[in-house]
């Protein structure tokens, strides 16, 4: 078997992965707070097929090393800020700058999200669209008529008989040394890993955290034009590798034809 064929197959598999990643980015072009990913590749180990040898009078010929293709090195999530989309809904929050909202996952761990389209649960708690409660808990009094969230994350409510505005808490945020290392949990949530580092918590507009914008949502950071161009490049590269397999196959076939009966 011509090992060049396997090399080209690895190229096709890599490009297939690239298309998978692009397809996921494109599918989430309208997902609030979604961060695009990027596939990167690396060459695999080399095999020495001919050691260095002395050619007459011309010095030493370098060894011939043949690479055996390519493999996926990493899928890196790009944590750039997406565009801000004004919705006017009081419980839509976007973080302009660094930081994640913290939510409680069903198993008790803390999840992190940039999707700030919150809602109020039946017990008055501030929850995500997925029903996960904000950490630390933020409970709105039952007679609330209006919620104001300032840029530094302070939540004030007004309502009741007096109609006065009272502060009920402040939204805490988390950030990571390496946000690309966070684990995607689906549902716009991320989980902490050893690669991301431990969460540093703090408040908006302090210690480098971004500001909270009420009535705004962060759209995905996917740019359709960029994804489409990458898609075309991946498709072409896929075809080229398929072509190389055909060439290898052709060569094998012509050897096969040499044998006469």
């Amino acid at each position, binding site marked *: 078997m011509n090992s060049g064929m396997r090399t080209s197959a690895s190229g096709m598999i890599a490009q297939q992965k690239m298309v998978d990643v692009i397809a996921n980015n494109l599918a989430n072009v309208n997902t609030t707070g979604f961060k695009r990913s990027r596939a990167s*590749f690396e060459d695999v180990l080399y095999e020495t097929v001919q050691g260095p040898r002395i050619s007459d009078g011309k010095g030493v010929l370098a060894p011939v090393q043949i690479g055996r293709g390519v493999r996926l090195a990493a899928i890196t999530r790009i944590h750039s800020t997406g565009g801000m989309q004004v919705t006017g809904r009081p419980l839509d929050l976007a973080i302009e700058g660094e930081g994640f909202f913290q939510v409680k996952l069903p198993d008790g761990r803390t999840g992190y999200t940039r999707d700030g389209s919150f809602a109020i649960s039946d017990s008055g708690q501030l929850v995500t669209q997925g029903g996960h409660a904000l950490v630390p808990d933020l409970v709105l009094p039952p007679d609330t008529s209006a919620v104001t969230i300032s840029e530094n994350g302070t939540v004030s409510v007004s309502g009741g008989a007096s109609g006065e505005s009272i502060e009920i808490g402040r939204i805490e945020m988390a950030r990571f040394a390496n946000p690309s290392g966070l684990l995607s949990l689906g549902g716009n949530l991320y989980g902490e890993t050893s690669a991301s580092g431990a969460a540093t918590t703090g408040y908006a507009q302090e210690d480098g955290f971004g500001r909270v914008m009420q009535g705004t949502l962060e759209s995905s950071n996917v740019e359709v034009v960029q994804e489409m161009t990458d898609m075309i490049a991946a498709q072409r590269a896929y075809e080229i590798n398929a072509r*190389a397999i055909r*060439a290898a196959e052709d060569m094998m076939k012509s050897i096969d034809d040499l044998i006469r009966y």
Partner: protein
Amino acid sequence: MPLRSIVNTARALSFYTRRQEIAAHNLANVATDGYKGDRITARQSPGGPWPVPAQTLDLQQGNLRQTGRTLDVALEGSGFFVVKTKDGERLSRGGSFSLDAGGMLVDAHGDAVLGTEGPIAISGREIEIEVDGTIVVDGTPAGRLKMVSVNDQAALRKEGLGHFASSTTPESGAEGRVRQGALEDANVDSITGLVDLLAIQRAWAANTEAMKAMDSVLGTVTSEIGKT
């Protein structure tokens, strides 16, 4: 005579197999950041007319592609960054760096990227990498990326995973500008790669045809001569 020619042609075919494998490897890595293509040429063997493969590494600059990601680092010009792997120091052309859990600058494999004074620790928010490799975090310098150059290209060997090993000690300091927020494309041109593939196929066909012709001569010789 035809028998020896068949053997020589077979050696030529084995050369073209190598060429095809290398062309396939280059094409498989057409989207690998920082990949440097292999080139193979024929040298005439001292012992006979068949070709012997001679390989060279093509160190031409690849295109720089803007990504905007803070820790994507590419090198413009000759030279290499140094990473510390478990097998020792290796050279690299940059790529998607990141920070590990301890805040150290690492490459895509988690191998530490070395600065002029060892591994670089980064803690802060605004990371700026200047053209000369100085890393500025929140306005204060945190280190400078170590850059080296290798004068003898033949001393360089690819190890896979984007790493290069050098059999000579690389010289410190390199001509090259560090580009933050950019990645270096593979220096493999897919069109040249395809044309190369086509040329290999044709040369292969020519050699197999020659082999067929000699085989039929040999067939005639063995079946006709000595016939009564």
